[in-house]
């Protein structure tokens, strides 16, 4: 049963990197929810903090980065007959990143698929070895059983000739096959949440289509929720039900996908949608480019970080941190334009 049950709530997440050169606020205010069995898209340009958000959830933020503030409420359900009932809620942000508790969640309840399947897989271990590792770690099975399970999941992800590829090394496989292997590895313990960090960015468009199809299919079969991180607005439109847009560490807008693409409120989302070339569009139409460039992470603009590039910027934007406003039911934006909105709340 897939219902409107919250699986993960991210509230006011802040993950900072205190580097010698200064403090990098990689994630500086992220608020969103992931529903059980649904797909949340996270979209943004490089350096916007979307990957660090994912790493924060799994508590694998590379040092010296650390979560400073915020809650990551992970809801666990137990299955009774056909219905799920809430078992407990755990705040991932409070766990010891090296402790046993987070490790029983990693790879088991929350799994992750990375962008570059070549570098993200160990070059000197076979696919089978790397897949069974997670199974053996989280489930009480024998090695033979784990291998059976790995074969089964490889079959499920459409890996050609699984009984052969299970003993192959990653470099012997094509990019698409490696990514299938990566997905098999992530799904081997039937996680309730799959975080996919740009899983198709390194792939060619026809392979990307295969992988996107596969992920949709697997979601239908296995019922896991997906947090899909990408910079490609096209992929989000296809894969996600709801989406958040990030810019310089902040979630600037959150809505269901249809609303986001047809009724975006934040000037950045609007500008982004106007600036991308579309395959269906009339040739030779001029694009509306966003002026300027993404600022240096050590030297962020004051106030709203988007203000130097924003067409609707007002004097205040330079000083005032924009509020996180619910502009419509279930449609949030972080912009001063909506500050007087009656539903405004003061978060972040």
């Amino acid at each position, binding site marked *: 049963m897939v219902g409107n049950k919250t699986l993960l709530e991210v509230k006011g997440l802040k993950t900072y990197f205190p580097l010698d050169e200064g403090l990098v606020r990689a994630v500086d205010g992220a608020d969103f929810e992931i529903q059980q069995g649904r797909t949340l898209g996270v979209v943004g340009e490089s350096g916007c903090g979307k990957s660090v958000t994912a790493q924060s959830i*799994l508590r*694998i933020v*590379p040092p010296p980065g650390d979560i400073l503030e915020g809650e990551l409420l992970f809801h666990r359900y137990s299955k009774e007959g056909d219905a799920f009932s809430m078992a407990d809620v755990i705040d991932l942000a409070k766990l010891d990143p*090296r402790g046993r508790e987070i*490790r*029983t*969640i*990693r*790879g*088991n309840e929350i*799994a*992750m698929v*990375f962008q*570059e399947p070549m*570098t*993200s*897989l*160990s*070059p*000197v*271990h076979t696919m089978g070895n790397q897949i069974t*590792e*997670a199974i053996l*770690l*989280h489930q009480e099975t024998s090695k033979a059983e784990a291998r059976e399970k790995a074969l089964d999941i490889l079959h499920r992800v459409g890996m050609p000739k699984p009984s052969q590829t299970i003993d192959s*090394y990653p*470099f*012997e496989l094509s990019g698409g096959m490696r990514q299938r292997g*990566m997905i098999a*590895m992530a799904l081997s313990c039937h996680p309730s949440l799959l975080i996919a960090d740009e899983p198709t960015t390194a792939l060619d468009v026809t392979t990307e289509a295969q992988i996107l199809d596969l992920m949709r299919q697997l979601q239908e079969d296995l019922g896991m929720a997906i947090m899909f991180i990408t910079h490609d607005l096209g992929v989000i439109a296809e894969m996600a039900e709801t989406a958040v847009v990030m810019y310089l560490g902040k979630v600037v807008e959150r809505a269901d996908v249809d609303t986001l693409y047809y009724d975006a409120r934040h000037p950045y989302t609007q500008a982004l949608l106007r600036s991308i070339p579309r395959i269906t569009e009339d040739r030779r139409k001029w694009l509306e480019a966003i002026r300027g460039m993404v600022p240096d992470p050590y030297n962020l603009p004051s106030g709203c970080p988007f203000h130097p590039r924003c067409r609707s910027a007002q004097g205040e934007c330079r000083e005032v941190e924009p509020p996180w406003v619910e502009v419509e039911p279930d449609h949030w934006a972080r912009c001063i334009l909506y500050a007087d909105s009656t539903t405004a709340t003061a978060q972040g």
Partner: protein
Amino acid sequence: MISFIARRLVIMIPLLALLSIVSFTIIQLPPGDYLTTYIQQLEAGGQVVDEAEITRLRAQYGLDQSVYVQYLKWMGGIFRGDFGRSFHWQAPVMDVIMDRLPVTLILSFSSLVVVYVVAVPIAILSAVYQYSVFDYFATLFGFIGLAAPDFLLALVISWLFYLLTGAMVTSLFSLPFRDAPWSLAKFVDMISNVWLPIIIIGMAGTAGLMRTLRATLLDELGRAYVTTARAKGLSESRLLLKYPVRIALNPIFSTIGWLLPALINGGVLVGIVLNLQIIGPALMQATLSQDMYLAGSIILILSVLTVVGTLISDILLAWLDPRIRYGEAN
């Protein structure tokens, strides 16, 4: 893989022939021959040298023949298992070498073990706790180990040992055993003396290995596949050993073949300082006194070991790293 090894073996044949010529040439480089050196020594000692005697010796050793003939005769002998006679020791070359081989091997092998046992754990800890006090000291130790010539280390350590205990390590054997034939008692005596040379020879190697391994490991620790493994829920220690350490160790294990010549040749300088009865100092002495068949044979054996060692390394590397294995196999 088999064809790869076969090809390598075929190429080794002309290479070894060339190496034998080079070995022979190296010994011929110093002007004169063993007898001229010998005569000089005698004359320096005030002795009169009989011309006829010299001519006789020259003919006896075959030194009156041309270099090419000498080389061919020597090579011919080698194919029959005869490496020639040592002038200095007045014995077949093989006997001189075999006499020293056991000690040499024990010494080299144990110091190698010391190197690995010490360097690998230190490097791992040093990389994992990068910038810690431990890392700082390990790095300093590594730098000094690299900077100090091994003979100097040998001197300083044995001097300190002397200051502390009053005992002087000047040989692998206590006096009664120096010239005695091999026996259990002699072996036991050697064991009690051999540890200091082992530590000294090992220390120089430790520093180098530690620095390389630490650098590779730091590289590997930052790789994406480590994050992947962590995201699976592996504990840090298991993750560390299964992935980065395994991969960082590959190049090190695979170069074990290169150590083959070092097993024979290791510790020349330490050997001289500590007066060890191993092959290295014998080679040095043979080169200086132009004891040509002894020196030539040792150099030739070393060359062969180098070539064979390289081959073993390549095979090991292919065996340890599937990327290379399959790259060749296709």
